[in-house]
């Protein structure tokens, strides 16, 4: 450790203004602060500081995403071997390894593209490399179907990082959640690769692993996909080989869907980490679920075959699709959400309501959670505006009374 520190101290002058590699200063500082917590001490104001910084914050979020990521990898393998009818023939690690191989390239592509842009921009603007993309970079692979081509992820990530974040001034300044913009870009630019029955289960092999022919009963539709195309009769959802699913299956998440979104259980584990560490706002998270349940209950009061989504129970509504993932990881993004306490209740509740509203009553979109968060990103400043006005009015009233 000492040698590394000494080495850094030795080469540091080269990167300072006037040094021969001064143009790479922020890259150097990025690596230096990555390796060592900076020893800068306070110049003005408080003399001591809390140990938390943005790197730590982002690491905690990544840690919270791990259950969903690992489960997602397993589930990718599980769905694949289920589809080719070899599930009982392969072991846990083969299943997981298949999923790992399928997901890893997506993570690499999203990080390389996103962080690459961050590095260039930091260099260009001459500020420190910011950590925001560490989280976005792992969110992106988790909210796409497993068969999304890598080049699409690269294009969408580049678009989102540049136009949703850097043009606004970087981490902390963006209006829209970067990962969701990536998803929205993919959704509108390449709709055929983002929905339908073909993309949520990998039927082909991955790097030669798990080759096989799909079984005859196979259909790759996600539960919500089945809901959207349902016509008449009782609504019974099936897994990819035609067996009926229960609420417990939705909760555990061994169903087709975007990579990290299927398991409510894994997502709730992440939620526990986020809430216990105090990184995410429980107000937002709770009110998204309350909003979703409320709208789900309302919809189920008026079941209709025109809108088959209304035949799902409220519990199924929040277990299915990307709802839970959006509630725990997307809505709680502090930068793009409401920042006042009262505002957070309203913001979260409306996300929950709109997510289910889109899902049930807009048959064009089988899933609305991500779009609901993006939509509320737009309204978050407005919500805050009214809460702040309320505070101002209280103060004026007090002054008049006195």
């Amino acid at each position, binding site marked *: 450790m000492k040698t590394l520190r000494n080495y850094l101290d030795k080469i540091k002058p080269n990167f300072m203004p006037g040094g021969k590699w001064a143009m790479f200063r922020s890259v150097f500082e990025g690596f230096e602060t990555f390796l060592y917590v900076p020893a800068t*001490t306070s110049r003005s104001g408080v003399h001591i500081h809390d140990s*938390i910084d943005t790197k730590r914050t982002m690491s905690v979020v990544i840690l919270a995403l791990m259950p969903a990521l690992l489960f997602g990898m397993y589930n990718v393998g599980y769905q694949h071997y289920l589809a080719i009818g070899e599930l009982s023939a392969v072991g846990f690690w083969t299943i997981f390894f298949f999923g790992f191989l399928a997901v890893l390239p997506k993570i690499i592509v999203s990080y390389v593209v996103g962080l690459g842009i961050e590095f260039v921009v930091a260099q260009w603007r001459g500020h420190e490399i910011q950590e925001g993309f560490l989280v976005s970079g792992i969110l992106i692979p988790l909210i796409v179907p497993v068969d999304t081509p890598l080049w699409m992820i690269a294009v969408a990530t580049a678009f989102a990082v540049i136009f949703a974040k850097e043009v606004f001034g970087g981490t902390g300044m963006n209006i829209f959640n970067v990962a969701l913009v990536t998803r929205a870009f993919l959704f509108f630019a390449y709709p055929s690769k983002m929905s339908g029955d073909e993309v949520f289960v990998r039927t082909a092999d991955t790097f030669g692993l798990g080759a096989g022919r799909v079984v005859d009963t196979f259909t790759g539709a996600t539960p919500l996909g089945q809901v959207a195309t349902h016509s008449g009769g009782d609504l019974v959802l099936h897994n990819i080989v035609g067996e009926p699913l229960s609420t417990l299956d939705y909760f555990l998440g061994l169903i087709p869907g975007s990579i990290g979104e299927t398991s409510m259980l894994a997502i709730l584990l992440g939620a526990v980490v986020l809430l216990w560490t105090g*990184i995410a706002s429980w107000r937002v998270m709770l009110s998204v679920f309350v909003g979703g349940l409320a709208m789900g209950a309302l919809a189920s009061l008026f079941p209709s075959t025109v809108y088959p989504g209304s035949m799902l129970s409220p519990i199924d509504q929040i277990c299915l699709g990307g709802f839970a993932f959006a509630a725990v990881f997307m809505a709680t993004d502090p930068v793009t959400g409401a920042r006042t306490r009262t505002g957070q209740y309203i913001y979260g509740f409306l996300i929950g309501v709109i997510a289910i509203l889109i899902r049930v009553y807009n048959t064009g979109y089988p899933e609305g959670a991500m779009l609901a968060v993006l939509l509320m990103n737009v309204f978050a400043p407005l919500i805050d505006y009214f809460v702040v006005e309320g505070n101002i009015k209280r103060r004026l009233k007090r002054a008049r009374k006195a």
Partner: protein
Amino acid sequence: MANAIKLKKGLDIPVEGRAEARVVEAPPAERYALVPDDFHGIVPKVLVKPGDRVLIGTPLMCDKNRPEMLFVSPVSGEVEAVNRGERRKVLNITVKSDGKMEQSCTTCPEISTLDGQQVKAVLLERGLFMYIKQRPYDIIADPTVFPRDIFVTAWDSAPLAPDFDFVVKGREDDLQAGIDVLAKLTAGRVYLGVRAGSRLAVRGAEVVAFDGPHPAGNVGVQIHHIAPVSKGETVWTLSAFDLLVIGRYFRTGVLDFSRLVALTGSEVKAPHYVKTIWGAELSSIIGENLIPANYHRRYISGNVLTGTRLGEHDYLRAPHSQITVIPEGDDCHEFFGWAMPGFGKYSVSHSYFSWLRPGRRYCFDARLHGGERAIIMQGEYDKVLPMDILPEFLVKAVLAFDIDKMENLGIYEVAPEDFALCEFVDTSKLPLQAIMREGLDKLRKEMN
């Protein structure tokens, strides 16, 4: 005493090195210094030259704009130097003590015979007005204004701060006299904010008890919960530690600037109270009472949140009753510190595993623990500011210097010290107190 006002928001930072209730008489210091920067809102005009003989109470400087406001010598002796910095800014005026403690004048008129103007004139002339600050702007009070009310806080709730109930023991008469003096200065009321459970009893002031973590003892927080300041109003604020000096002078006619100072911090071998005089050299207060170390240290006059950073050969600043010494930490390079479990790293969030050991006290050093970023996390400031104020929005209004917004969001109620805890917990490591200070100064310029 009425029921205590209970405040939930805030944070008591578990800093190591609390002073035990034991007083040690400090040896007389060789030198004492007056530092103009300690008095925000005045323009210093030096009234002495090196070599001048001064007594306790001899004016050393005055406010250029209000020459009647004098700042006096705390000891008798000889002016040693008027140190100046860039653009001839006065850094400090040092007095070499002769150890005789001679008073320039030993009489003081009876309080009851004076009216408000006369009391004010005495305070200004005897160098006691420097203890009175005002809201808005958190500056040395404007003596021409009649304040709506006067607020005294008898509870310093900051980390490791001296306990007023201990300091006031045996000086209750001084406190009472001080309250009597203040009562002359306002047509409104004098409020004394105390810690819940305190037995302080005074006549002529309304005693309000507060309960809760820091900053419940901040006078700004207390004002907010007793009678908030609106636009156009002015209130005066004091610390009860300073009121004792004023009280003693009016009671006995003797200017006695001695005070009990808490010597605190994890670098101090045996933290305790020291009896000394403001302006005293640091060495006379600390002596040999530091643990041996081969790293840098940070000396602070005041507490770790709002105190002034001192050099090793600096002086106890006039407004403070506390000295804190902590490690600087500038030689500490933590390898992958942000990724480690961090059992020994304090954080108000649970993002380091130090939450496994509640009740533990920490040896904080002066590191920021991260780089400065844009405001990312939400609600961090809210949790530690027990006022009906939206700190994040106020800070943003100040940064944008949007005067209407600042007024609307309560700029007149706050002082930089109220944002100290926000600055401590801030993930983005923004210098919030400096931002507020600059905002208040700019606003004052704009308004006057």
